[in-house]
């Protein structure tokens, strides 16, 4: 990269991200005739939405009676009352329409004998306000996300959406009045830096699970949208809330399904003890996800972890009949051999609670418009999918609600853009003279850095810090030390050095730029978690235990509010949770128990 120049291209709208959320939004824009650019780090159908297997929820009532209001109740309860009830009502009411629409786009859902969309039961889906399980999850075999992406992509091809594949967005363009005017991006093949000047910008960049050492997320989930938004002065909402899955393969993160414990798998510590008997005498290894995860972490923290670093426990199925393993759990044997180097018929699988999903993100309303800390909307800026916080997941996401989130809010954000751009048929607002300065300075710094830090080592240090200090189970002193440590790591991130300075396919540069985003996510998570002195949903603190006054450690009097992390000052502010739905009565606060 000898000298940095920047060219400008004009579009009505630009969408960053071609996963489920970005593709759903793009359909609205392209079909309305807007000149739209969709950027993606990878070919659209390689987005991480592919990994979703479980399904997408909607109260179609195809197998038995169901109602959007029941779905809404489950979602509010699942969120531990931190979800905004207007957005949750909106999403649950729109769900049947969103799924049927997808069917019309060609999504090959599993079907009942009568040809309706088949629905299966899923954890947390209940009928009649928490009474009994209901079948609400719609799936396409075990490849729901894959099928969804293909259906949405085909629809976009039909609508002539213009894709920019293997382009990385680097920064938002925001003027002095706070209007968002597009983005600056890097074309990986050429190293060219291009400004996409647009009347509207939608972020659909997905999650950021790679801030943790152990994550089920693919490498692409580096939180670029969050980093870009934070650098542009947008406060990030509820970043302390991350969902963990109890059994990811230690070191690799690859998910081992709950089915393994269902078939009789046992968790053991370094003393070979079946420790779940102490934590959950009845349910034992089959206790709920958060209970199992916390027990595992307690064992590790008390020195009963396994391996040279004593940092995992063992999932043992060696007592099962090999024929059962081969028949009932074939995929698991392959995953274990491949990713733990262990044949589970002969030896137990090393596992750790593993980061899975980000509940927080860029704050939006249920129209997909990004909102400022003062509640006003950011002109020209929209977000949807895992990067956004509407907030429908609150403190804990309900399974299958994220695919629904991206369909409903992908479409809503698209509709908002169409309305805004068509209604105000105005010209593009001028780009400020210095619009690219910060980005170019960042790139220049990277190109000229001497005696700097290694990107890989710094990333690893960040991941280990997050895992140790801000994992499944959180401790006051660990969090405080974690804040200090992550600020140290941040200093190293500001000094990363790359050996390769070439222009074409410089993956070292891209990884350094991704780390710039990851660190914003990590820091916002640690700082928000340290500050929230209660337990709620996925945020569980040792010093906020279950008491009669505060069941499950939740403290509504002090903490029924959303966190907002401000990058510039590294401080937090808070905003109220919307407890008033759009048309029905508020779902009243209650202890979350299943």
């Amino acid at each position, binding site marked *: 990269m000898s000298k940095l120049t920047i060219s400008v291209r004009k579009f009505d709208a630009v969408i960053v991200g071609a996963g489920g959320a970005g593709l759903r939004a793009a359909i609205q824009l392209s079909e309305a005739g807007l000149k739209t650019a969709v950027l993606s780090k*990878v070919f659209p159908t390689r987005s991480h939405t592919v990994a979703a297997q479980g399904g997408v929820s909607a109260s179609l009532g195809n197998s038995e009676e169901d109602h959007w209001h029941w779905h809404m109740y489950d979602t509010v309860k699942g969120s531990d009352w931190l979800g905004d009830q207007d957005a949750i009502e909106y999403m649950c009411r729109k769900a049947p329409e969103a799924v049927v629409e997808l069917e019309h786009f060609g999504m090959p859902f599993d079907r009942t004998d009568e040809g309706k969309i088949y629905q299966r039961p899923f954890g947390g889906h209940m009928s009649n306000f928490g009474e009994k399980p209901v079948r609400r999850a719609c799936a396409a075999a075990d490849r729901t996300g*894959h099928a969804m992406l293909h259906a949405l992509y085909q629809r976009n091809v039909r609508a002539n959406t213009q894709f920019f594949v293997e382009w990385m967005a680097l920064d938002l363009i925001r003027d002095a009045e706070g209007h968002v005017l597009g983005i600056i991006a890097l074309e990986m093949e050429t190293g060219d830096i291009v400004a996409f000047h647009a009347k509207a910008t939608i972020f659909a960049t997905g999650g950021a699970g790679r801030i943790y050492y152990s994550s089920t997320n693919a490498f692409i989930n580096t939180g670029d949208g969050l980093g870009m938004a934070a650098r542009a002065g947008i406060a990030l909402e509820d970043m302390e809330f991350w969902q963990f899955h109890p059994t990811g393969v230690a070191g690799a993160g690859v998910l081992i399904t709950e089915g393994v414990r269902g078939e009789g798998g046992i968790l053991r510590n370094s003393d070979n003890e079946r420790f779940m008997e102490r934590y959950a005498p009845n349910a034992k290894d089959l206790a709920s996800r958060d209970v199992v995860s916390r027990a595992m972490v307690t064992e590790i923290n008390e020195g009963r972890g396994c391996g040279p670093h004593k940092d995992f426990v063992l999932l043992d199925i060696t007592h099962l009949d090999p024929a059962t393993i081969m028949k009932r759990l074939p995929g698991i044997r392959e995953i274990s051999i491949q990713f733990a180097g262990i044949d589970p018929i002969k030896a137990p699988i090393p596992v750790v609670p593993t980061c899975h999903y980000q509940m927080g993100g860029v704050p939006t309303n249920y129209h997909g418009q990004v909102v400022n800390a003062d509640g006003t909307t950011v002109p020209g800026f929209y977000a949807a999918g895992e990067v956004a916080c509407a907030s429908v997941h609150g403190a804990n996401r309900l399974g299958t609600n994220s695919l629904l989130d991206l369909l409903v809010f992908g479409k809503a954000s698209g509709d908002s853009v169409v309305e805004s751009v068509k209604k105000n048929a105005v010209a593009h607002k001028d780009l400020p003279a210095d619009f690219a300065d910060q980005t170019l300075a960042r790139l220049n710094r990277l190109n000229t850095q001497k005696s700097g830090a290694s990107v890989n080592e710094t990333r690893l240090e960040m991941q280990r810090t997050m895992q140790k200090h801000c994992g499944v189970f959180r401790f006051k002193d660990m969090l405080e030390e974690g804040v200090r440590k992550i600020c140290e790591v941040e200093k190293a991130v500001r000094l990363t050095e790359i050996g390769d300075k070439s222009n074409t396919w410089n993956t070292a540069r891209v990884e350094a730029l991704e780390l710039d985003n990851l660190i914003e996510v990590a820091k916002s998570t640690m700082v928000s978690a340290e500050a929230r002195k209660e337990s709620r949903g996925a945020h569980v603190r040792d010093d906020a235990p279950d008491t009669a006054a505060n069941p499950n450690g939740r403290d509504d009097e002090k903490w029924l509010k959303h966190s907002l992390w401000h990058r510039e000052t590294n401080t937090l502010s808070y905003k109220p949770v919307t407890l008033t739905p759009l048309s029905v009565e508020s779902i009243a606060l209650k202890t979350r128990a299943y």
Partner: protein
Amino acid sequence: MEASEELNRLRWRCTRRAMLEMDLLLGGFLERRFSSLTPEQAQAFVVLADMEDLELWPLITGKRECENAVQAEVVAMLRDVRVK
């Protein structure tokens, strides 16, 4: 495109995949084994890396047959990449 650029492009496509499983396998293979492949095997690997994850996984787990002998060799080596 120079060889180093070609390799970088391949690295991106091997480590920014849809599924974590494939990032680990293909990325690990590229780092540890790719440089020792014959030109035919290298070409076969590029073809594999261009597949979608849900096409490639059945080849690796043996649920689907490889298209030719060279591909089968490379898939066998891929299967052999231990992540840990």
